């Protein structure tokens, strides 16, 4: 836990002895890492993920059969690419940390893959959905348990077209995440060919006031406003739509699937569409087990949409270390062929890019302050109607 040699040469013998005394005749300690946004607008998702990863470690340490005692090193990427590269470097550069579950924000995940590759540091992405993270390069170090944004945008375009909407205005944040959403959604929509995009607006994550963009959109008068971005600006844009009396459907992505979105908008959140890959936590194979254990820990945050994936990623890392020992190279090799491994999010199979193939997509609509699966919602049954819904 401390670089004894160096501390001694640093003339701090006493301190070392004091600290070393703690570890006498314990299991070998092994460090594993977690990186996610613990501060900033999407902090809840990051903290939910951290708690879930922490849960995986706690349960493992409680298990007497475990070979090692695990210590979780947590770093905050603030959902900013530059910070992410810094903390990723910090973690990958620390030889004592064997592997990590990393990143909720695609902008940070895509920025760090080269760093992980440079340092030969195995990671499993637990929340970021941009395809490029696994597919741009073929890095043996990088894996992902959750699916990519491609399928969710197909499902999204599908739903919009089937509901009979004709015109869509796109707002996306100008990180790779937002651009990716814009790209895949536009493609999917064009493929179906029923609705057309009347305008595309790039906005920056720090932006507070969107009335300018929305006023232009109002002039274009679309049926649907598609939003490819994360909760904070999602909340702002939705409430400012209301200010300008824009009635269009607010059609968002996995980026806003978070209780913070509903808290942030109150009644205005009603009728917002959102999509997420994988089944909703309750319906996951291990969902019930996960929720029980999670609540037992009395964390002050819910696991949020991707908590289960963070748990699965961390659990897979721990399994691998138990199997091959605390050695980065061996861990990378073992993660090289993951086929049908059981996890609380179902069977996990990594393709040659380390991407878990999650075909299933969950469609959400916000109803009475809750994310409700579309097919079970009163909107699908026709009991309620979205603006302009036939």
């Amino acid at each position, binding site marked *: 836990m401390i670089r004894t040699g160096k501390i001694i040469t*640093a003339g701090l013998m006493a*301190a070392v002895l004091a600290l070393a005394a703690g570890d006498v005749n314990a299991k070998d300690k092994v460090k594993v890492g977690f990186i996610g946004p613990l501060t900033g607008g999407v902090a809840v998702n990051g903290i939910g993920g951290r708690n879930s990863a922490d849960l995986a470690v706690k349960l493992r340490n409680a298990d007497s059969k475990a070979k090692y005692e695990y210590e979780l090193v947590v770093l905050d990427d603030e959902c*900013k690419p530059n910070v992410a590269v810094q903390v990723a470097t910090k973690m990958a550069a620390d030889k004592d940390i064997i592997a990590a579950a990393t990143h909720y924000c695609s902008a940070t995940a895509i920025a760090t893959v080269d760093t992980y590759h440079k340092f030969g540091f195995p990671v499993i992405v637990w929340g970021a959905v941009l395809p490029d993270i696994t597919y741009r390069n073929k890095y043996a170090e990088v894996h992902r348990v959750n699916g990519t944004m491609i399928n969710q945008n197909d499902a999204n375009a599908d739903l919009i077209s089937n509901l009979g909407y004709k015109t869509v205005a796109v707002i996306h944040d*100008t990180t790779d995440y937002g651009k990716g959403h814009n790209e895949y959604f536009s493609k999917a929509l064009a493929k179906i060919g029923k609705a057309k995009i009347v305008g595309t607006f790039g906005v920056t994550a720090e932006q507070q006031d969107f009335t300018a963009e929305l006023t232009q959109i109002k002039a274009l008068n679309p049926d649907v406003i598609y939003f490819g971005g994360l909760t904070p600006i999602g909340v702002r844009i939705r409430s400012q739509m209301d200010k300008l009396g824009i009635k269009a459907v607010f059609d968002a992505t996995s980026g806003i699937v978070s209780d913070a979105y509903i808290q942030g908008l109150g009644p205005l959140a009603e009728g917002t569409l959102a999509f997420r890959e994988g089944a909703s936590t309750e319906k996951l194979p291990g969902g019930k087990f996960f929720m029980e254990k999670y609540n037992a820990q009395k964390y002050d945050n819910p696991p949020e949409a991707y908590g289960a994936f963070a748990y699965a990623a961390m659990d897979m890392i721990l399994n691998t270390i138990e199997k091959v020992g605390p050695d980065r190279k061996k861990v990378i090799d073992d993660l090289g062929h993951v086929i049908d491994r059981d996890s609380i999010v179902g069977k996990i199979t990594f393709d040659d890019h380390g991407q878990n193939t999650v075909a299933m997509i969950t469609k959400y609509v916000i109803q009475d302050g809750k994310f409700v699966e579309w097919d079970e919602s009163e909107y699908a049954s026709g009991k309620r109607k979205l603006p302009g819904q036939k």
Partner: protein
Amino acid sequence: MAEGAAKGENARAPLWPGLAALAAATVYLVALLAAENQALIISLLAAGIAAVLTAAWLRLLDRASHSFMDHEDALGGFAVLAALSVAVFFHEDHFVLLLVITVLLYTVATLGLNIQFGYAGVLNFAGASFFGIGAYTSAVLNAHTAIPHLVVLAIGGVLAALIGSLLLLPVLRTRGHYAAVVTIAFALLFKTFLEVNDVLGGPQGMQVPGMKIFGWTFNDNIEIGSISLSFYMNYYVVSLLLLVGAFVVVRRLERSWIGLNLDALRLDETAASCFGLDVVRWKITAFLIGNFIIGIAGALFGMVGSFVAPNNYTFADSLILVSILLLGGIGNPWGLIVATVIVVVVPEKLQTIQEYRFLLYALLVIAVLLFRPEGLLPRPIRRYFPGWRP
């Protein structure tokens, strides 16, 4: 100070207090960098503060500063040795080396700022922007051209100076707070521009290819027989050279008629112009040289960090540079080094309270401004030649 200088007139201060101070500081720094256990770090910090206070109380600090005044060249040499020994000590510890490199390059940047603000009194609240211009220069040139990377560093500096000269007219015409707003506006403009303009990667930022000099690739670890050195060693050496160079330039500048001119125009433009001083010429000189130095540091830092994004170069970052200047003691290069270590290393080491580090850091600066407004190491009276006697 005064009576110290009076002593200095007749007797040369001995070398050993400075040497002792330097040695103590080095050992302490090594200890701080090596320590990982939070309790240990916190007690180290407490001990450090206590030590400094007692030293000040026993007037040991004055003696040290006097021997620095009289034996600066010798002590400068020892300082370089100290820096190298730190590097040797952590020769394979990537992250610590990166941290120290950050200190070195931030110091270079603040040296540039010091010429502008500390000497000429030309405000620059866009330091981070000019740093960023350098970084983006190396990002673009390294990726798309074959220009030798040492030349790229120079180009980074030149570009920073050139783009900075766009501000010359308003900077020269305005005074005080009005001058402040010019650079503040530029800082915000610059960051927003990077964010909304896709050619330079937008908010996502860009990867920066590593440095190569005469076919020597900086991003490969160095294997000498059995010992392996972190690849950061390469950058460490170059950064140290850059710092020494900048330090010498700034020192000679201060200890020349030019330094005198800059002080004169800062303190009383009208009086200075009544004694033949060309205010405009010297303001321009200071502003351009300063930005040039900042730009070079930025260009190298871009290559070290291997990644640039708008969020690295915000107004807040410029403020950090300025607060380093104030913490250290405006106009005192040695103070800058100490202040940079505090500002860069301490928050990094206090990771367990990572959520609170900005808060604490801000409180620290407030305390210093209240109780030691002239900075930790106030600038001593100008000595044109260290140890010179009539």
